[in-house]
């Protein structure tokens, strides 16, 4: 029998993928669940670790920082979702329907931060938001020095600063996604509505928005998934500090697993990771279903 007719043949094509999937995705998932049921620091031998079953999870419930990180994660996801979509949509509408000289260059500039690494973006904004940074300098220069503060070093503002920086970086990306959506709307539809005397607000709400539904839901889910994934920016800007006030789930995992000041309890960190998995899994499934239904 020729190789091509054998049942095993297609598996030759997917073998490398399957092996990597097993090693880097399947095994870690199972292993994470197992570790989260242990008491283990990750340095001593695994055979010395003991099963404490759900104690890590019970401790999580009693852990104030965990709840704070969870709350911050949802604030972050919500804030980014709203503003990145809002700016993305309005910028796309503006650049697509208003004739402006150099529109293409403008689009590229607004998009540009999306290709920078979050580490670079974080380092730039860390300096701007620092004590004697650009923001405080500017506020002083226009006579608003009463607003000066250590933006990343108090209890309230750091998480909102992080949201702001994330919105700064990713609005342009949302813009090009919406822009692609606008390109797929047939011109004659808009022309016809204009001939009927539809005003711009009406045109946008009644005709353009409904047609953008598919693209909008993709942009939203992308922002949600990206929001749960955020780590680099928080790590560079605040390390979750001061005193955990800007901690999100991902940085809190890192804190317990790898930070020199952390508990070095890999088992506890794994329990947090499992919680994050469960939350993001829901959105992962939505995302995958969406790509099945939306056709472009």
């Amino acid at each position, binding site marked *: 029998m020729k190789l091509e007719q054998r049942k095993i043949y297609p*598996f030759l*094509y*997917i073998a*490398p*993928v399957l092996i*990597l*999937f097993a*090693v*880097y*995705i399947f095994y*870690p*998932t199972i*292993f994470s669940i197992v570790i989260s049921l242990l008491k283990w620091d*990750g340095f001593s031998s695994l055979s010395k670790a003991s099963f404490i079953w759900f104690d890590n999870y019970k401790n999580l419930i009693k852990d104030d920082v965990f709840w704070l990180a969870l709350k911050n994660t949802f604030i972050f996801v919500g804030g980014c979702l709203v503003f990145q979509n809002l700016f993305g949509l309005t910028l796309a509408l503006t*650049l*697509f*329907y208003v*004739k*402006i000289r150099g529109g*293409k260059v403008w*689009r590229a*500039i*607004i998009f*540009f*931060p999306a*290709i*920078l690494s*979050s580490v670079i973006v974080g*380092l*730039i*904004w*860390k300096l*701007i938001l620092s004590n*004697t940074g*650009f923001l405080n300098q500017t506020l002083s*220069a226009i006579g608003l020095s009463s607003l000066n503060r250590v933006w990343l070093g108090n209890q309230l503002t750091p998480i909102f600063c992080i949201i702001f920086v994330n919105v700064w970086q990713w609005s*342009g990306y949302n813009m*090009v*996604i919406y822009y*692609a959506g606008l390109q797929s709307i047939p011109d004659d539809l*808009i*022309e016809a509505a204009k001939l009927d005397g539809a005003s*711009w607000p009406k045109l946008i709400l009644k005709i353009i928005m409904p047609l953008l539904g598919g693209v909008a839901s*993709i942009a939203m889910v992308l922002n949600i998934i990206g929001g*749960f994934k955020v*780590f*680099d920016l928080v790590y*560079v800007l605040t390390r979750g500090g001061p005193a955990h006030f800007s901690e999100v*789930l*991902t940085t809190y995992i890192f804190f317990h697993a*790898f930070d020199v000041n952390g508990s070095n309890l*890999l088992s506890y*960190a794994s329990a947090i*990771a499992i919680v*994050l*998995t469960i939350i*993001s899994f829901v959105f992962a499934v939505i995302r*995958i279903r969406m*790509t099945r239904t939306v056709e*472009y």
Partner: protein
Amino acid sequence: MPGKKFFSNKFTFGKFLVVLYLICFLVLIILPLLWMFSLSFRAPGTMNTIIPNGLQFDNYQRAIKLADERDYPISQMYKNSIITTFFSVGITLIISSLAAYAFSKLKFKGSKAIFYLVLIAMVIPVQIFLIPIFIFSKYTGLLNSYIGLILPYIAFGMSLGIFIFKGFFDQIPKELSEAAKIDGASEFQTFLRIILPISKPAISTVIIFLFLQNWNEFILALVLLSKTNLYTVPVALSKFVGEFYFPWELYAATVFLTAIPIMIVFFIFQNWFIKGLTAGAIKG
């Protein structure tokens, strides 16, 4: 083309407001970058003014020297990033196009289930796999090696590759590959000589997406590398600039030394970037 003609060229208050909004946003994007750029040309101790007084051009040389002295040579971190990005993107392209071909053209039992399973990796935060991967790498000696970073980069990039390639292959009419097979081509030859050459749009989308993803990747490199001579650009930056006390003018110069090359590449190939990243987001 930006700017359809639906909005009349006449001056209206609405148009004025809309353009004002756009200008505000542009300023918001450009100003932070510009301020940072101006810092990188300032003399030491002149940071507390908004408008620079005087220019200093050797900050960039001093930043490179300082990085050398502190054992974070910038050329070395570029080398590390180039090696890990090049090999991870290259290998991901090969294995994901192969797998996508099987998922798309070779019907086999369980293909759908496996396909959706692989897709999940695309959307779940990598932090979940981080701890087991760290332990696995430690016991297999993969910590602190290029290959130990390249392999997980492939694993976390291949889902997107498979997704985009499968979407593209599905649209190629069957007649094309059937004709090749009648001419005596094997399945693999059909893939290599017929399917791949017409898949350039998919290939460029995958390249651009994975290039940025792996070039900018941070947390895996942070956890899996602890030797400074192996640090990729983001890790080296965060350790070097982020953790030491640093003179601002050199801080800014170092940040721009790592940002300028990608800036230049972006503005030369901007259409390609935007098209590829949009397609990757919408289709993948």
